[in-house]
Structures are given as C-alpha cells and as structure tokens.
C-alpha cells in the first residue's frame, strides 16, 4: 500500500525530472477527457516532447497533485518544474504563440488543433503506478 507521502514524493520527482510533463486523464493515445485530449493535441501540434502521467488509476494522485500545485483541475502542464496551467491557459498561450516561445519550439500559426491530431512520437512515462 502506497502512502500519500510516497505518492506526493513521486509526483514532485516526476515534475522535477521532466522538462515538460502533463498530468492528465487517460494517456496521450487514449485520453479519457476532452480537456486532456485538447491539451495533448496542442503539445503534439507543437512537436514538443513531453512526459505524461495518467491520474485516473488512483484518486490519491489527483488529490496529492492538487495539493502540490494548488490547482484544482486536470489536466495540469508543468514546464521546468513550474505549473503552466490547464487546458484553457495552454490553449490560450498556444493561440498567442506564447507557448511555443516558452517551450522553445518553432511557433505554428493559427488555430487550435482538433482533438486526436497525429503528432510527434511521445515520451510517455507513468511512474506513479
């Protein structure tokens, strides 16, 4: 039985070890929520490699994540250890070009991508099982 403390430590380590990491419902290939799917589609369209953690297997993951970040909803995107935001902020920053700038990838003009757009190969990690 994993304790809450161990889960929180694993979350903090994952955030610290991955330059870009997304906590989401489901996986990038099989998102289980429209907001998670939309956020994945934005990252894929930028070609930004990211780690992903599915928060659904254990409700304590979400609880501890929100305690760490102070952010109540899923998905949550972290860049260099800092919370970037959820779906709304990520989408808005994508549309203005701020996200490409912050992530250091070439800006792509225009519209928010459709859900489920095929993108670059993903680095998927789930160390919280």
């Amino acid at each position, binding site marked *: 039985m994993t304790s809450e403390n161990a889960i929180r430590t694993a979350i903090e380590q994952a955030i610290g070890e991955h330059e870009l990491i997304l906590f989401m419902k489901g996986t990038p290939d099989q998102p289980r929520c429209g*907001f998670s799917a939309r956020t994945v589609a934005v990252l894929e369209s930028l070609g930004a490699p990211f780690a992903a953690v599915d928060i659904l297997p254990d409700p304590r993951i*979400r609880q501890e994540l929100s305690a760490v970040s*102070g*952010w*109540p*909803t*899923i998905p949550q995107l972290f860049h260099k250890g800092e*919370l*970037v*935001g*959820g*779906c*709304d*902020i990520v989408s*808005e*920053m994508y549309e203005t070009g701020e996200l490409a700038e912050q992530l250091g990838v070439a800006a792509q003009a225009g519209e928010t991508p459709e859900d489920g757009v095929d993108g670059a190969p993903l680095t998927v990690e789930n160390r919280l099982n």
Partner: protein
Amino acid sequence: MVTTDEIKQRIETGLPAARAEVTGDGQHFRAEIVSPAFGGLSRIQQHKLVYELFGSELGGRIHALSLKTSTE
C-alpha cells in the same frame, strides 16, 4: 443541478466589480470574466482566484469550469 446563473452570481459577488458571462450545460461551464482584481496577476493566479470561489465543488458537482479572464 448547477445553473449558469448560480455560477455567475458567485463570481460577481466573490470578486470585486466583476462581470461574468457564463454558459454551460449543468456540469461543464465556461465563464468569461472581467474584474480589476486580476490586475498585475499572471493567468495562473487569475484563474486560481476564481477557482478558490468554488473550492472542492470543482471536479465534484461542477465537472469543469473553463475560464477566460481579463481586467477590461
């Protein structure tokens, strides 16, 4: 059932001089909010101010609240 009016009212009473336009289906909502309270804050901080009004109801009786915030 949560109504768009309830969400609107709680935002407008919870934030100074806020005006909110809320749409939604009873579970998923979208709010466009203008308030001087957002001045000088990052997007993250602006959204946190709003989320704090709803606490644990977010993810519970309110499945999702999508936000667009500005100061004018």
